């Protein structure tokens, strides 16, 4: 059993919610560590972008969404996938190029989508998912579905034309979309200080008539609360919101990153703001979970990830024989 029952609601509302939030963040981190290990051993093809240190944002956001709500994700998308409820085994199988992976080995790390959990897909193009999220929100509006779409993207995507065109369309049509900017301070090596002339990236909303707010992206409760408010606005037909969650990626952009553009001190400083440790402190203080329960949750996440990797390894390698059939969907199917 590598998928979790989705729990929605405030992470601090009950011990169950706290447990779910911690488990989700722990699953994301353990999965990323597993991915790093598999890549390091040469068992994974291509490249991978790890979100260690950023677990609070996907977790808090997705706890404010229903299963029928949709997300679009990014190249650093493993966390979004997990938080929206994806199956860990099928995720790992995809990374290993197996037939039973989410994309049958055709997409890999940057293209995992999961229709059942409303995940419209990670995206290898910076900003590529933003107009798509707006379109999904347009469909929701046209069909009166009452669903909300969250577009996850990083700070780098805010300087892509796609963001600007999509934000404007969402604003003029009052679409039920939430732009979640996970500002992890660097677009590969370009810091937000170099790439932006504003302090808070959420200020970009001003130019489009979209309310924008900036929050601590390592505080899962704060992320949840912000998203919850934006979701209410969206469902009420009041249009889009821009949420900037400030966070930090502990690992390099991809594996070949030597961290030349930032200091070890800065990385250490952010590691002290570990979203998982922070949440553990809060739930302990509030008496929601004790040390023993916290340890159990991490052990459960660890065993789930190990089971997923072992299970995924058993999968059949994807077969080139049916590659041509996969390009087009058959007419009338």
């Amino acid at each position, binding site marked *: 059993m590598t998928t979790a029952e989705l729990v929605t609601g405030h992470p601090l509302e009950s011990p169950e919610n706290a447990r779910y939030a911690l488990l989700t963040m722990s699953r994301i981190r353990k999965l990323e*560590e597993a991915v*790093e*290990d598999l890549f390091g*051993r*040469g068992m994974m093809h291509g490249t991978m972008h790890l979100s260690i240190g950023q677990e609070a944002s996907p977790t808090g956001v997705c706890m404010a969404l229903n299963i029928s709500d949709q997300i679009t994700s990014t190249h650093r998308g493993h966390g979004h996938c997990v938080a929206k409820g994806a199956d860990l085994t099928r995720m790992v199988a995809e990374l290993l190029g197996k037939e039973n992976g989410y994309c049958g080995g055709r997409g890999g790390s940057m293209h995992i989508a999961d229709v059942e959990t409303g995940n419209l897909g990670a995206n290898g193009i910076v900003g590529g998912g933003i107009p798509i999220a707006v379109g999904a929100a347009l469909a929701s509006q046209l069909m009166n579905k009452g669903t909300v779409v969250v577009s996850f993207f990083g700070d780098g995507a805010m300087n892509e034309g796609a963001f600007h065109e999509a934000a404007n369309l969402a604003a003029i049509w009052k679409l039920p979309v939430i732009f979640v900017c996970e500002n992890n301070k660097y677009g590969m090596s370009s810091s937000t200080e170099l790439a932006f002339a504003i302090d808070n990236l959420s200020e970009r909303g001003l130019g489009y008539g979209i309310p924008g707010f900036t929050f601590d992206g390592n505080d899962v409760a704060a992320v949840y609360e912000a998203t919850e408010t934006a979701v209410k606005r969206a469902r009420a037909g009041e249009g889009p919101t821009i949420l900037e969650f400030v966070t930090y990626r502990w690992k390099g952009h991809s594996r070949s990153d*030597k961290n030349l553009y930032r200091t070890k001190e800065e990385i250490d400083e952010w590691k002290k703001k570990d979203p998982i440790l922070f949440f553990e402190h809060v739930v302990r203080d509030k008496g929601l979970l004790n040390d023993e329960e916290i340890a159990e949750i991490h052990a459960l996440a660890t065993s789930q990830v190990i089971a997923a990797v072992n299970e995924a390894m058993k999968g059949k390698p994807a*077969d*080139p024989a049916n590659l041509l059939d996969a390009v087009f969907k058959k007419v009338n199917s």
Partner: protein
Amino acid sequence: MNKFEYAVIMPKMSMTMEEGELLSIRVNVGDAVKSGDILFDVATDKIDMEVESPADGVVKEIVGQIGSTMAVGAPVLVLFTETQVMSFDFNTPSTPEAAIEEVIAPEADQVAAPEPVIVPVVEKTVMAVPKARALAEHRGINLQDIAPTGPYGTITYEDVNKSLGAAPQPVSGLESRKAANRKKVAQALEMTRGIPQITLSRFSSHTTTSLAQGSAHIVSTWARIVRKNTHINLSTHDESAHDFVGVGLIMESKYGLAIPVFRDPDLSPGAHLQEWIQTTRVQAAEGKVPVQMLSGATTSIFDLSHRKIASAIPMLLPSHTTALSVGAPHASFGESEINLTVDLRYCDALEAASLLDQLIDAL
């Protein structure tokens, strides 16, 4: 409390990296390390990288040698860690890439491409449109004999058509195929004309059995002789020995001569071989010889025993070392003439005489 053992490995750091050099190790056995501390430095052809500790812990053991080149995945040092670090040593070389390559790789035991038995004679390049070329070939016309009228000195379709005469006789498909086949056989024989060769002749009284068995007897007997005499059972391309015996048996087909190759006929039981030859005769008559029977011969047999032809000088086909012919039994004394032609590069005249003796003794 450090309860988990974890091996820090030579990490894969780029899409193409397979191994890395261990530049330095920054810790000693017994050192306490924090998550993020640098443990060692690694160099690849592309980049140098510092490898960090994935968790808090203590250095238990150092495995890697400074200055050595290590494969991706090889352990460099071992830690005792406080938390369990994700680690998956499946200890198999089958990476996903390797697995995919396996699927793509061609099957090892595929049959080698058939050797061309008949190689067209190379002529001077002639410019002609494709359809003119096709017409010329079907009608047995040498394009060199045609004066081109098309642009760039190219022979047009009309040029070939005109060369057939003012009112060209329509030629049936069968006739043109026959002509083409004739031409190909002639071209093939032309290629072996320069090979030093000798033809020896002996009478044999085997013929009655042979007739009854429709060539099976002579085919299997000759195959046994060829198998024993490895110097004539080889490839004339690279002189590598054949690990089978291929005997071409000249037959009639609707397009003229056909030479299907029987592989290891001496290993087939007599009745079986007889049936095999008979089936092939029927197929050849319809112009359909199985593809796998089109190559691999080092010898040929022209069996004329069922016709009233006394003898024929057998001619070497390209890549063959020997050729055999069997004539009809003499009307009065019943023996028939067997002729053997050999390629003298592989078999001298005395060896040829011995081969013929062996054959007739065996018959």
